């Protein structure tokens, strides 16, 4: 039920990923200051944008779950958040690499996107302990949806607050994320963003299908056991 349109989606992901990779390595110009390492920007920023999108989507699925009571929406929310957290680790790691290359430190507080992402990441890490410490499955799903909605609303608010703070304490260094990009870089960036987004949706559908199948299997097995016992 979740795998509608999976094949074309997977194909599109592969194509856009290949295109993005070739653009990054062969088309985009080498940055004058930072050299080759700057290219990590084409991974770091799309990853961050897609992860944040995933978190917000998790919140929207949470709203649909609460309104309909249909557990499939909760599953969609869970997988979206789950994948975004994994992407989040990647964002922080690539962010650290980029920071080291650009400013010489493994972490800097100058980048409001990265800083606010750290706060968001710390918040979403609590999703797992919250979720899995509630035993009643229905309640677990409901409370997870409430969390997803609260955290989803929090993401833009937090970003705004951090940005306001940073612009006071650290005057904004013209960074690649904020400043305007020259044509070739822009194209490469957009294709990378598309590739990352398609990859996310493909993995999302993949995990949904796998989890759904596992649940069906468990249900059938239980029914079989009950019949054998009777």
């Amino acid at each position: 039920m979740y795998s509608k349109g999976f094949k074309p989606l997977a194909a599109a992901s592969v194509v856009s990923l290949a295109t993005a990779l070739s653009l990054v390595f062969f088309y985009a110009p080498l940055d004058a200051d930072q050299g080759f390492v700057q290219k990590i920007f084409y991974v770091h920023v799309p990853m961050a944008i897609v992860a944040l999108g995933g978190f917000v989507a998790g919140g929207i699925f949470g709203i649909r779950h609460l309104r309909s009571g249909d557990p499939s929406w909760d599953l969609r929310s869970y997988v979206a958040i789950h994948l975004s957290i994994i992407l989040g680790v990647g964002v922080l790691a690539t962010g650290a690499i980029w920071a080291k290359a650009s400013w010489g430190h493994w972490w800097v507080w100058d980048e409001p996107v990265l800083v606010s992402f750290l706060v968001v990441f710390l918040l979403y890490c609590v999703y797992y302990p919250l979720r899995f410490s509630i035993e009643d499955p229905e309640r677990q799903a409901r409370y997870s949806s409430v969390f997803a909605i609260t955290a989803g609303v929090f993401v833009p608010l937090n970003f705004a607050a951090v940005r306001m703070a940073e612009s006071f304490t650290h005057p904004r260094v013209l960074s690649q994320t904020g400043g305007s990009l020259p044509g070739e870089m822009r194209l490469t960036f957009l294709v990378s963003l598309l590739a990352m987004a398609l990859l996310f949706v493909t993995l999302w559908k993949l995990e949904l299908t796998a989890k759904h199948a596992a649940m069906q299997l468990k249900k059938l097995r239980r029914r079989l056991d009950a019949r054998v016992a009777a």
Partner: protein
Amino acid sequence: MIGVTRTILAKDLLLELRTKESVPAMTLFTLTVYVLFHFGLDRDSLDGELAAGVLWVTLLLAAVIGVARLFATEREEGGIDALLLAPVDRTALFLAKASGLFLFLVAVEIVAVPAFDLLLLGPGLGGTMPELLPVLLLGNLGIAAVGALVAALAAETRARELIVPLLLLPLLVPVLIACAQATEPLLRQDQGPEDLGRWLGLLTLYDVVFVLLSVAVFDYLLED
């Protein structure tokens, strides 16, 4: 609904007066943390950014204690069931708990802020109260709304004491940012408010968003 909120709030305030569980603990905690900061930072007096930071981080940590206890009696003595069986709007429970937490924070600050002035603050509060007050009140409102929501979210989990701080503190980062930034110029040697409106604006936005969100979502935490 106002009547029911008042009934529940009155009951909670009466219980707090009798048991003296939350407010004294929160207040004592802030004083202890001030002492810790004195030793940790090895400073006799703070001003400006450092002072604002210490003041607000301490208040947030004290709030965690209050939030963790917010639904304790309901959970232990079946208060939620009693409410669900009564012909009342369940949002009243959220409003009552948030109001209670707000009042607890005010009570704590009545002691904690002068204590901060006494123990750690270099320049002294002096005439900054008219500017500090709205920051405190709007900050408390945000903490109260989010705190009540987090308390309800964590109420049913086994790992309650762990989940509350982990959930509450990141959510309060915008409040911390706004309050610390607004307070910092008030605590400098050359005091005077700066951009107060901007930070009060952020606090107001945060408060409005989270009060509305919590009210919308709270019912789903109570139903079964």
